[in-house]
């Protein structure tokens, strides 16, 4: 008789990081079959619609990149914060405030500016808006030791109220009376990058560029080493002479700024105005992206592309098969749970021994 046992490993296996995400995806789909069946569709058809169909035409494949764009930003924002030991769960609120700040400057000041000046200015405002929304939790954490999880979470509904308050109040479109801001200046629009037939815009390139920079800073610079040290063990980092508080504050602000740019990018590249509900929980999905990507920058890119695929597929699955597109939300949540559970196996190996 052969006994199957879990044994501890001294160090995580090298291949583990590569294998765990695909395994998590397969397990998640197996676990969520019940929802597809409840909607009266065949699981194989549904997953085909979800994952394969979006990649079969040029337009939908580009739409996957469009859907991935905000997730690249928020995924990177969350990964940077988590790796530095700052539990930023407030990317959603930071994204919304980034969008508000960007919309404000893009509808007031930049009208006369050339595109090359207007776009960086508006993005900088988006970053500042997001960073400002992260500043209060970061200061409360660093100065008073107040748990940032709670404060960043609480500021998410507040951010949403700021957006709807502005759109129902002073920013309401005077022509249509819809709860949407007026259109931003043409010079502040992020231009399409593959021609007019796709919505894919410059924001995608900016996101990739930011991620490359973040990857370089984390992996190749002294600051990155300090950040990782602070994230792994703040006490040890403090003993090593690293000023953990200042570092955390910096990481939180950078994280908030990147989430803010996500909001600016959606306003400047997709909506061209502030609307309520323009963010389909991109900030929360960023947590899924960061975890699925193992908090590494290349991982964030792959995870954002995968979830972009899922989001585009869920819309067509809703249309074609009558499976509500909220299945994508269920899959995201389940994926996060499966992934975080599987990650525990990192330190174990399965051994098969003959019982004696």
């Amino acid at each position, binding site marked *: 008789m052969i006994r199957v046992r879990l044994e501890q490993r001294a160090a995580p296996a090298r291949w583990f990081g590569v294998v765990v995400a695909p395994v998590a995806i397969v397990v998640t789909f197996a676990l969520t079959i019940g*929802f597809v069946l*409840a*909607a009266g569709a065949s699981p194989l058809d549904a997953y085909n619609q979800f994952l394969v169909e979006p990649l079969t035409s040029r337009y939908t494949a580009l739409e996957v990149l469009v859907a991935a764009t905000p997730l690249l930003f928020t995924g990177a924002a969350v990964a940077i914060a988590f790796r530095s030991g700052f*539990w930023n*769960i407030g990317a959603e609120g930071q994204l919304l405030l980034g969008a508000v700040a960007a919309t404000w400057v893009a509808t007031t000041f930049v009208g006369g500016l050339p595109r090359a000046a207007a776009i960086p200015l508006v993005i900088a405002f988006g970053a500042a808006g997001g960073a400002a929304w992260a500043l*209060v939790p970061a200061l*409360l954490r660093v100065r*008073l*030791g*107040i*748990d940032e*999880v*709670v*404060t960043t*979470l*609480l*500021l*998410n*509904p*507040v951010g949403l*109220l*700021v957006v*709807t*308050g*502005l759109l*129902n*109040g*002073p920013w309401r479109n005077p022509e249509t009376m819809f709860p949407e801001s007026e259109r931003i200046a043409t010079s502040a629009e992020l231009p399409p990058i593959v021609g007019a037939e796709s919505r894919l815009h410059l924001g995608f390139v900016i996101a990739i560029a930011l991620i490359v920079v973040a990857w370089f800073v984390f992996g190749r610079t002294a600051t990155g080493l300090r950040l990782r040290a602070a994230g792994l063990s703040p006490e040890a980092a403090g003993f090593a002479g690293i000023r953990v508080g200042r570092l955390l504050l910096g990481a939180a602000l950078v994280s908030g700024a990147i989430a803010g740019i996500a909001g600016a990018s959606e306003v400047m590249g997709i909506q061209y105005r502030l609307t309520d509900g323009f963010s389909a929980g991109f900030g*929360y999905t960023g*947590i*899924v992206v960061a*975890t699925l990507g193992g908090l590494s920058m290349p991982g964030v890119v792959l995870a954002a592309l995968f979830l972009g695929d899922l989001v585009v597929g869920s819309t067509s699955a809703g249309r074609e098969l009558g499976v*509500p597109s*909220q*299945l*994508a*939300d*269920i*899959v*995201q*949540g*389940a*994926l*996060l*749970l499966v992934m*975080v*559970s599987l*990650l*525990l196996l990192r330190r174990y190996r399965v051994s098969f021994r003959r019982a004696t």
Partner: protein
Amino acid sequence: MSFASDVLAATLRNSTPLLYGTVGETYCERAGILNLGIEGTMYASAFFGFLVAYTSGSLLLGLAAAVAVGVLAGALMGLLTVTFGTNHHVAGLGLTLFLIGTAEFANRLHFRGEQALATIDPFKLWDFLGVEILAQYALTYVGFLVIVPLAWWVLMRSSLGLNIRAVGENPEAADAAGVSVARTRYLALMIGGGLMGVGGAFFTLAALGSFTLDIIAGRGWVCIALVIFGRWRIGRGVLGALLFAFVYALQLRLRLIPELAGVPFELLLALPYVAVIAALAVSGRNVAYPGAYLKPYRRA
């Protein structure tokens, strides 16, 4: 009706779901588990409680369904954090995303193609004394007069409560004393989840009689903050819930002041959330978290 009694009545009413959520979360955290699944638990309980009440025509059956959803959600959180030993933050958020997704999925599936918002006849206010402040839902009376004293007594005076606090402070010692850490934590999560379920159901079965997509709107996160504000004590947590509800009731009345007519009501609606953060900044400094907070337990 006078302004003061109006505000006080609304305070008691609005604090009810927070009371259940905060007491529930206190049980989880006293056992050492941060349950960020609370937002999703309240949301899913609000929906499935409504769905069962709507299809069966029985409010009590709906309430039972909401409790069942909460207990299940607590057990799932236990599987993730106690059995698997995963990170509490990620597990709780994943659970919230999963439960909100599930509720919205089921909502779409069941009410597909219906134009009007589905409504039920909700619980009635008990108005037997004719005093405005005391005209409250049964869930409010039960919450303040039964659940709070009972929850306090169980947590602080019963052996179960002692076990819960022990596995949250020092699981090694509890284990050595023969207390099953895993079973106690599961139990605390399931009790807590059931209470959160009642809190969620309060919105659909009592306050509104319908289900809308923004029905919880971060109140689960508020409960997390109130537990810290209350320093993991039932009484102080409930006090926090009353304070939040008071600011909430106040901002509703502020909207009626002519001078404030130009202020979008959403900005006033943000007031209670900001007040909670401010309260944390004042009283949440250097608080003593439960000793085994966020720590999975494995026998050495």
